[in-house]
């Protein structure tokens, strides 16, 4: 039966998660050079529109529709056929099925949008959005089915992923790595200084992401009660702890309290706590967050010394943070918070194993498929703008609209 309180919460959460995509646009946009700022925000905005359509047409059906051997959802729910206003008790027994579908749709959008951070400043706008729609269909939807779909094989294995550590963050982070490798470096990468053009946008984006993430994680309780409250608390604590630890790292290694560091830390903490948020207590969340700040800091430092131009460090933050979060869930899951799960610290080493398996599967699947899709696009319609266009900047060459004067 539909519960108004639970539905209100899920609708609000959907709106909050929706907001994360433009927020990501500002976060990413502030980090690129000014000549590519508007293009970067626009990529995120366009992703929201296109994947919304993909989702109601076939995406939701592939991800959550009746399972075909645990591997993929059937197309029975194409165009939302049969996805009505009564609850689907398999997924969320107290909210309309369409509300659940909406909430999940917002996840599909933001996941695809995250990858944009790896390809900014050089991808053709048209190819970029084509890629995102294909990627969502071929990579996101199946993986979501495995982990969250009724009958999905990883779900059946017992993998825990409260709000998307594996499906969202590892997935996007690894896809970013593949994308950076296919797209290759920006001209001047490693030699010229690529200065973030708008730190205030970075922090605006990070703040709105944090705000929206309350919906992302606490909304994943699919009801408005203790579990949602606990997930909300864990989210806030982990984000805070990671902000602090990355800040300390920047102080330690650079001698200055980096604002970009604080913002990145916040995101790293949010990422890491995502799969764990419905399972851990305050101190667990604090440890997960604090550690995420350190790990992701080092991952980003490491990456920046490689030849791989994952421009905004999607792998370092989402890939590494998501992996840590998935594993940490297997360690810190506390049955006192959520009786359905227990981690290593609470006497269940098996959970940790399952988490490692799910993580590995996501790494491999996401990397290979993303690589293949991008190679395909590259060989057919082409991925990158011309050298000339890259030098002039994507705001002018892709949209004929400069960010601001």
């Amino acid at each position: 039966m539909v519960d108004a309180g639970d539905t209100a919460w899920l609708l609000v959460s959907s709106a909050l998660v929706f907001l994360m995509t433009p927020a990501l646009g500002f976060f990413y946009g502030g980090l690129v050079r000014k000549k590519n700022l508007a293009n970067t925000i626009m990529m995120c905005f366009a992703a929201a529109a296109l994947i919304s359509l993909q989702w109601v047409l076939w995406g939701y059906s592939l991800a959550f529709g009746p399972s075909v051997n645990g591997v993929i959802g059937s197309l029975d729910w194409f165009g939302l056929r049969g996805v009505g206003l009564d609850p689907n008790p398999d997924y969320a027994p107290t909210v309309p099925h369409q509300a659940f579908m909406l909430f999940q749709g917002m996840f599909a959008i933001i996941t695809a949008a995250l990858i944009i951070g790896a390809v900014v400043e050089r991808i053709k706008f048209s190819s970029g959005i084509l890629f995102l729609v294909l990627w969502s269909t071929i990579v996101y939807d199946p993986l979501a089915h495995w982990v969250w779909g009724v009958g999905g094989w990883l779900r059946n294995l017992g993998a825990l992923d409260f709000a998307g550590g594996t499906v969202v963050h590892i997935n996007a982070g690894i896809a970013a790595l593949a994308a950076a490798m296919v797209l290759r470096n920006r001209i001047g990468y490693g030699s010229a200084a690529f200065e973030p053009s708008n730190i205030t946008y970075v922090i605006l984006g990070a703040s709105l992401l944090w705000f929206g993430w309350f919906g992302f994680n606490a909304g994943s309780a699919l009801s408005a009660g203790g579990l949602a409250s606990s997930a909300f608390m864990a989210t806030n604590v982990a984000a805070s702890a990671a902000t602090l630890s990355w800040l300390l790292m920047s102080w330690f290694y650079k001698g200055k309290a980096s604002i970009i560091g604080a913002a990145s830390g916040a995101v790293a903490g949010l990422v890491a706590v995502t799969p764990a948020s419905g399972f851990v207590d305050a101190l667990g969340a604090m440890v997960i967050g604090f550690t995420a700040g350190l790990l992701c800091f080092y991952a980003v430092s490491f990456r920046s010394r490689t030849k791989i131009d994952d421009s905004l460090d999607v792998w370092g933050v989402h890939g590494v943070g998501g992996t840590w979060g998935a594993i940490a869930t297997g360690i810190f899951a506390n049955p006192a918070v959520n009786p359905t799960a227990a981690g290593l610290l609470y006497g269940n080493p098996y959970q940790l194993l399952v988490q490692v398996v799910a993580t590995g599967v996501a790494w491999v699947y996401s990397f290979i498929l993303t690589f293949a899709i991008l190679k395909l696009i590259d060989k057919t319609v082409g991925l990158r703008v011309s050298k000339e266009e890259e030098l002039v900047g994507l705001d002018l060459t892709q949209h004929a609209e400069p960010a601001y004067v």
Partner: protein
Amino acid sequence: MKLVKAVIRSEMLDEVKNNLQRLGYAGLTVYEVRGRGRQQGISWRIRGNEFRLDLIPKLMVEVVVDDADVADVVEELRKSAYTGSIGDGKIFVIPVEDAVRIRTGERGAEALK
């Protein structure tokens, strides 16, 4: 003294700054500009209409130097800002009659040290 004005690509600023510093010319002033030159912006045709965006963001670097150093500075600027693509920019040399350091009141070449 001369004022050397160079319109360059933003990305080249670091290179330019470091190289000038290395040669001992620390003083400089920069600001954002938009420009058109041989690189006449982006233009494209669609359905019979022609579109053009002809102002491209650049950076202006201004360096005031002693007459004796002009050649060096221009040369260094040129090398540091060079990529070889259209739109690398231009350098202009303009006479300067006096310079004053506000803090000390020093004048002329003294003010540039």
